[in-house]
């Protein structure tokens, strides 16, 4: 199971030696992680370790300064978030990336609107978008907000549900969730966890960023630990413990 040859064909996404700086801040210093097909991969680390920056590189928001991203064995470069989506990568950003002034259904479809008409006379297919958003959302949220309400009016948990439903609903091959349950109540957290399991059953590879070790150990197959812009350790979830993960995050224990 752990021979390098079989691991390679199992790998759906691999990021190698990714660096990214913002001015003088070196957010990523050569981080490398891999995700396996059909698995939930967790990414953990202290605040500022570089998790979200890595996520933003994988979802096409940031262009890495150096390093390669390999998807299904092919090297890819995402110039825009759309490019990442076209390669089947959906992301729930930590900041949720919702436009507060727009409605729920508009947020669902920004950047990939459904249109009707022909040639230059394309108009938004509002009805289709509304009903799609409604059905995707009702799978997830406990307290389903009407899809015609502005995001500004939603509670924090409802917003998170919108962002998650938006990412999970497209039949993509990889779903990245940056702290998806951070603002959620008990019921909603359980729902999100069941969504993650459902995605896994469908063969979707999930990258889960979370500070909740119980959740990580419960849901994930594999854990990557980041510290100071590097992925410093990896473990099979079944072969590690919360204590060991804490030690790896703080650096008390070497990889």
């Amino acid at each position: 199971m752990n021979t390098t040859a079989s691991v390679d064909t199992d790998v759906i996404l691999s990021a190698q030696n990714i660096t990214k700086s913002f001015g003088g801040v070196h957010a990523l210093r050569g981080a490398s992680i891999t995700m396996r097909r059909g698995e939930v991969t967790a990414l953990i680390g202290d605040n500022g370790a570089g998790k979200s920056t890595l996520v933003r590189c994988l979802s096409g928001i940031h262009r890495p300064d150096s390093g390669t991203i390999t998807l299904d064995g092919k090297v890819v470069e995402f110039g825009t978030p759309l490019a990442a989506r076209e390669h089947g990568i959906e992301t729930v950003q930590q900041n949720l990336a919702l436009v507060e002034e727009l409605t729920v259904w508009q947020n669902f479809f920004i950047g990939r609107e459904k249109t009707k008409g022909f040639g230059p006379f394309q108009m938004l297919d509002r009805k289709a978008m509304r009903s799609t958003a409604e059905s995707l959302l009702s799978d997830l949220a406990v307290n389903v907000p009407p899809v015609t309400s502005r995001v500004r009016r939603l509670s924090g948990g409802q917003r998170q549900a919108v962002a998650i439903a938006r990412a999970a609903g497209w039949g993509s091959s990889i779903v990245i969730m940056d702290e998806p349950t951070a603002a959620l109540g008990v019921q909603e957290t359980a729902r999100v966890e069941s969504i993650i399991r459902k995605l896994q059953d469908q063969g979707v590879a999930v990258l889960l960023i979370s500070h909740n070790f119980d959740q990580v150990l419960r849901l994930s197959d594999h854990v990557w630990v980041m510290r100071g812009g590097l992925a410093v350790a990896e473990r099979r979830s079944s072969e590690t413990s919360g204590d060991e993960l804490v030690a790896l995050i703080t650096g008390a224990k070497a990889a």
Partner: protein
Amino acid sequence: MNLPLQTTNIAVPEKGIRPLLREAKSLSFWAENAAPIGLIALVIVFAILSPTFLSIGNIRAMLVAAAILVILAVAQSFVITTGGIDLSISATMTLGAVGFGIAWQAGFGFWISAIIAILSAGVIGLINGLLIAKGKVTDFIATLGTLSVATGLALIVTSGKPVSITSPDLLRLTTGSVWIVGYPFIIALLVGVVGWFVMFRTRFGLHVQAVGGSEEAAVANGVNASRVRMAVYLIAALLAGLASLLLVARIGAAEPAINTSYLLNSIAAVVLGGVSLTGGRAKIVGPILGALLLTALTNGLTLLGVSQFYQPLAVGLVVVLAALLTRFQKK
């Protein structure tokens, strides 16, 4: 443990909160509908004070007079929805008018001159877009710069003298009408309808609102924010070019004169229309009504024989009042 809880529940000050709530409700109602309410109020007041205000002839004149401002307000509304502002809009219109005059003088016909007018205005929009979207210059500074550039160019090209134009096509544009609605206002209404459709029924319009609401979120969802910004400044300038034709037709000449009142009024109309200058919430009908309101205000004051000097004051008061009211809009 239950008793104190209950008492705090009962202790809601019934007398203080309810009327306040009702007032807030009505205030937000006023804020949302400032333009139509203001327009109706003005019409009623002026109709009482001046018998000619609602005469067919005066309505006709008002609609023609409103056309340019309506077009500029729609143009400005696109820019302001992205959170930007186009201070050059009226200077761009002047440059378009001068472009028309020069082309006309050089012997080109109406249509070619009209295209040249729109294109020369478009150049300013292109520069605005490049400065703001690509050069990341603050919209305020960039369009203040192009305001000056466009004004200067218009003066240079004409040596500061108006180019008078006698064209039957232009004459038909000002005098032609369907019933009491003159061609200029029909053109303005068409701009309004198309503008509304583009803003609320197309992908591009949604992107304009998204960029204004949160550029970061829009970009994370694959919206090309700098292309959207380029586009709105270009649209604004092209519409200013279209308005310049109405301006030339109205005056019968291409004047290089600076026209700040159109700039201020275009922004005022948008504010009256309930659009927040921070962007994200689009409105098209509101700004159009705002433009009508401002036109009716100036017209009514003129009819009542109020000195020209008081008109900017009146416009200013109305706009400040509207701006105050927008604070009470529902979020």
